[in-house]
């Protein structure tokens, strides 16, 4: 299990291959890549700057991954979240889950993303033509995380 917060880019092929290349039990890798969009709430976004809470970030991501491991068969997993200033089309976050079968891989990957969005201490500030503004939390993200409380 690899959990990393970093400013540098990452290579998707390298990260995903690290989950399956040495483990022939892996039949499925579900991956999520989150990217900076050039528009939000109707305004142009020139840059997105990510702040985080060092220490708690890694701790909360580890808890989320542990919770996913308790619910689904996970053979390996990588979570990389970037911080600092990013531009549209740049990757922000990678969650990749390796499992024997696809249902576990998909569910665990979606679960980790939903919890990351509501539990991991990252904050986004965007630069728009109107100036800088902090991105507001979305109720739809709370709802997405809440749906895992009653099923797996």
């Amino acid at each position, binding site marked *: 299990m690899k959990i990393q917060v970093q400013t540098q880019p990452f290579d998707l092929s390298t990260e995903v291959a690290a989950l399956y290349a040495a483990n022939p039990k892996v039949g499925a890798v579900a991956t999520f890549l*989150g990217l900076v969009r050039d528009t939000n709430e109707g305004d142009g976004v020139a840059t997105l700057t990510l*702040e*985080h809470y060092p220490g*708690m970030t890694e701790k*909360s991501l580890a808890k989320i991954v542990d919770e996913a491991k308790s619910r689904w068969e996970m053979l390996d997993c990588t979570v990389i*979240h970037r911080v600092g200033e990013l531009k549209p089309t740049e990757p922000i976050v990678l969650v990749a889950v390796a499992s024997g079968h696809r249902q576990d891989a998909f569910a665990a990957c979606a679960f980790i993303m939903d919890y990351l969005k509501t539990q991991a201490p990252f*904050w986004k500030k965007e630069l728009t033509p109107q100036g800088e503004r902090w*991105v507001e939390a979305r109720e739809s993200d709370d709802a997405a995380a809440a749906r895992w409380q009653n099923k797996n």
Partner: protein
Amino acid sequence: MMRITLLYFARLREQFGTGSEVADLPAEVQTVGELVAWLRARGGNWANELAEGRAYRLAVNQDMTALTTALKDGDEVAIFPPVTGG
């Protein structure tokens, strides 16, 4: 006397004009909720950002926590807006 470290992030860091402080708490501040009330009593942006109905989150020693949590000497307490990563 309890001495704690306070951390502020994102909008709260900007509004409070600082990212961290070390605070010696008066005897009546024993829980996270009492800590928030004590900070709110500073007035200005503190009163405004921590007002009833404003959305903020609290963590003690890097775990999300509730207002009823008891504080102890040496705790690291963080106050921040709802998270927006991912």
